């Protein structure tokens, strides 16, 4: 196993009795990109700062390439960790040129090597010819690339990105995301990215750590997280799912949206088991015949090329469905829909983690 970063049972709180991080354990493999995904205040930035060495853990250990760098009472200072950082607002040094910014971390290198590295970095991020400009003369996207070049120049063993795309407007974000991903893959660097944007996390990460209230609730590939979420929180946090009650009888789960075949690999035992199933909007389809379930449209909203409808079942339970915009349904209209989930996500109604085959 080739792990660059190892966290063992890290805990941290800023006020007594109010833990920000609880018992976090993670391994990050060399050359991979790990995304820490969670809502504001869930502790992901604190985790990043612990890894960088700006905070001291209350419990647990942090190992950087087999070397202990953090534990209660011992913190190797950030300047000795050889870790690159990019902040949300880039934090470029405004009184220095791009050249000086990028070379800031190379002060121990011989002059000739510094010059070569500078040219290399500028080429890597696509900013040749801009070396003598000042940060305020560049656009947001260019500033971000300088921040990246500056962090990568000293060839760090780990790169930390704290919501690097949040400051950019939507159009730029998508484009820059792809460019940055290409740069990082080309540089072959191990990266930890902190974000609250699911789309970003799902598209960039090799491994995803979903954080809720200081715990890592799931640490898996994006595919796994979407198809087999460990907890209700993960299931609801990723995508726009709604839960629907169901009861298992023999080989079927009976729900308001019809009967779903029950397969034993879901790992639930006993009969008349009460469960909650996740309904994702993409899984719902319109249906013209009598087999569909009647629902009423209570809300519509545009999602680009598709429309998101909030539908209400006769029992009053609501869920969402995503239909192409050619389909036009009005508020209050009654339609029939079917639901055929491919990857079924089921939780027992007691809120325990979903048992599934591994």
């Amino acid at each position, binding site marked *: 196993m080739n792990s660059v970063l190892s966290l063992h049972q890290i805990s941290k709180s800023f006020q007594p009795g109010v833990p920000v991080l609880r018992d976090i354990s993670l391994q990050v493999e060399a050359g991979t990109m790990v995304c820490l995904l969670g809502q504001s205040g869930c502790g992901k930035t604190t985790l990043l700062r612990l890894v*960088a060495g*700006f*905070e001291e853990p209350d419990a647990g250990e942090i190992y950087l390439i087999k070397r202990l760098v953090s534990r209660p009472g011992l913190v190797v*200072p*950030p*300047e*000795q*960790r*050889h*870790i*690159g*950082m990019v*902040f*949300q*607002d880039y*934090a470029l*040094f*405004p*009184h220095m040129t791009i050249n000086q910014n990028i070379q*800031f*971390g190379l*002060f*121990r290198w011989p002059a000739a090597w510094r010059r070569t590295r500078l040219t290399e970095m500028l080429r890597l991020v696509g900013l040749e010819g801009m070396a003598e400009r*000042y*940060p*305020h003369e560049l656009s947001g996207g260019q500033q971000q690339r300088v921040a990246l070049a*500056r*962090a990568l120049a*000293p060839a760090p063993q780990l790169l930390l990105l704290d919501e690097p795309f949040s400051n950019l407007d939507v159009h730029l974000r998508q484009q820059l995301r792809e460019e940055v991903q290409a740069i990082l893959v080309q540089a072959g660097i191990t990266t930890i990215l902190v974000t609250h944007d699911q789309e970003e996390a799902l598209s960039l990460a090799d491994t995803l750590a979903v954080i809720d209230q200081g715990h890592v609730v799931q640490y898996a590939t994006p595919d796994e997280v979407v198809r087999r979420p460990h907890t209700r929180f993960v299931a609801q946090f990723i995508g726009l799912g709604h839960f629907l009650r169901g009861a298992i009888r023999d080989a079927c789960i009976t729900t308001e949206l019809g009967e779903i075949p029950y397969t034993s690999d879901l790992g639930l035992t006993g009969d008349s088991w009460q469960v909650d199933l996740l309904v994702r909007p993409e899984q719902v389809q319109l249906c013209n015949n009598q087999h569909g379930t009647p629902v009423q449209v209570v809300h519509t909203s545009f999602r680009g090329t598709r429309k998101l409808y909030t539908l209400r079942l006769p029992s009053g339970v609501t869920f969402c469905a995503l239909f192409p915009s050619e389909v036009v349904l009005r508020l209050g209209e009654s339609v029939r829909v079917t639901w055929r989930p491919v990857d079924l996500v089921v939780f027992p109604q007691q809120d325990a983690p979903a048992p599934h085959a591994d």
Partner: protein
Amino acid sequence: MVRHETHQAYVVGVPVKGRFSGWALAAMGIAGLLMVPILAVLSSFMTPAGEVWRHLWRTQLVELITNTVLLLAGVGGGTLVVGTGLAWLVVYHCFPGRAFFEWALILPLAMPAYVLGFVFLGLFDFTGPLQTFLRTTFGQGFRLPNLRSYGGVTLMMTLVFYPYVYLLARAAFRGQGAATLEIARSLGRSPLRAFMLVTLPIARPALVAGVALAMMEALADFGTVATFGYRTLTEAIYRVWYGMFDRTAATQLASGLLCFALGLLLVERTSRGRARFTETYGRGAGVTPTVLRGWQAALAVGACLAVLGPGFLLPIGQLGLWTLDTLQAGQLAPAFGMLLRNTLYLAGLATGVACLMAVVLAYASRLHPSPSVRWSVQCAGLGYALPGSVIAVGVLLPLAWLDHTVVVWLDRVLGRSGGLLLTGSAIGLIFAYVVRFLAVSLQTVDASLTRISPSLDDAARSLGASVSRVLRRVHLPLMRSGLLTALILVFIEVMKEMPATLLLRPFGLNTLAVEVWRRTSEAMWQEAAVPALAIVGAGILPVLLAVRLSARR
């Protein structure tokens, strides 16, 4: 005097070409009036006075200019080191008493330099208690370095003026947030190196502005340099005016001093204009201070006390003791009540006029933001950079002219008997106060007015209110705390003022500051303590205000 940065400035009106505007006219009128003293002093360059200049050059000009430049350099360097160092200590470190020191280090602003000066002389001079004690202990030949020297004056002024640099440096360091510093550390620099390579250069404009303010105060000071026998241009103006009754020479000296002041003003104004040095980053994550323990913490506390102790705690204590002695001995002069009344009367009058003008100027720039109004506001607010002695000379020249021409004519017309009407009255003094301190009230009033969103104006106008109704019912109530602050700040500055008061006051009209001067010029330290304590006591109030205002940011 502390300048606060405004966050958001709303511009309301759109100037319509060719439209008559009472506000704009009023603003220009005020600015014109307040520029008269400066123009009067500058015009003295044009009257041929070659003989006077030659005489000055031969006798003292070189010494005066050298002394002034040395003083500015010494005070500039001293306040830079002390102010920046203390700000660095307080922002980036955690040590016992930090919360207290953070605001307490601003207190020396309440202490006029001349008060600190005479307390030190009273305590540490050759005949003072400390040296007498040391002589009895170590023998008659023992003496400390002479306090009445360049070193002594520079030390006094550094202890009193460093808060200008301290406040601006602290705001600059806080405003940068932690991001740039942390990035510098992640790139391999130690915390101290990171501070020097990144934080200090970015904060440079704020530091330059703070040093410029401290130097302006040093340039304007009269009481300290006179008591210490250190001859600067300001001191020379007074000496030449009263000692030699040489008005022309005094005017020429004032014009020279004015050049220094304008130079400093230029430095201060241009250093603030570098927008790219100030925060392009929002108030992001704040700094996580390093916790100091053991000998490091002791050193930190020691550094703060080494500055605050002599600069504020010691003089307050000594003034208190002297005052108690005076009161117990029943030696409080009956004239003290009269002094207090005079001071309050003059300060009250000047404050009222200054605040009224400030409201007019601030309103004019809100309703009619044309270039001419903007320039008027800039010009009207120049006074804080000008030494009181220069303003005094600049006020006396036109007033004397008026007395000798217009008033004489008026007397003839109205049949009054002759006599100097203007130069002998308090009008000149009030005028000088307003010129000098309008900037203080203008800044405060302007800041509180520009915080009021223009949509309030629009809403009120759409409901049928006229401009004056909007002013009375909407703006003034919202500006109430800002106006109160302005009133207090100007009042205290006028109370402390000495050079212009000495030069312009009508015969017999003495203020607390004048009384301090009269006593200290005869080395009667204890008798000077009561009026001095009154001045300092009153001065603590605006300092606490400034602390509250800066805490709200």
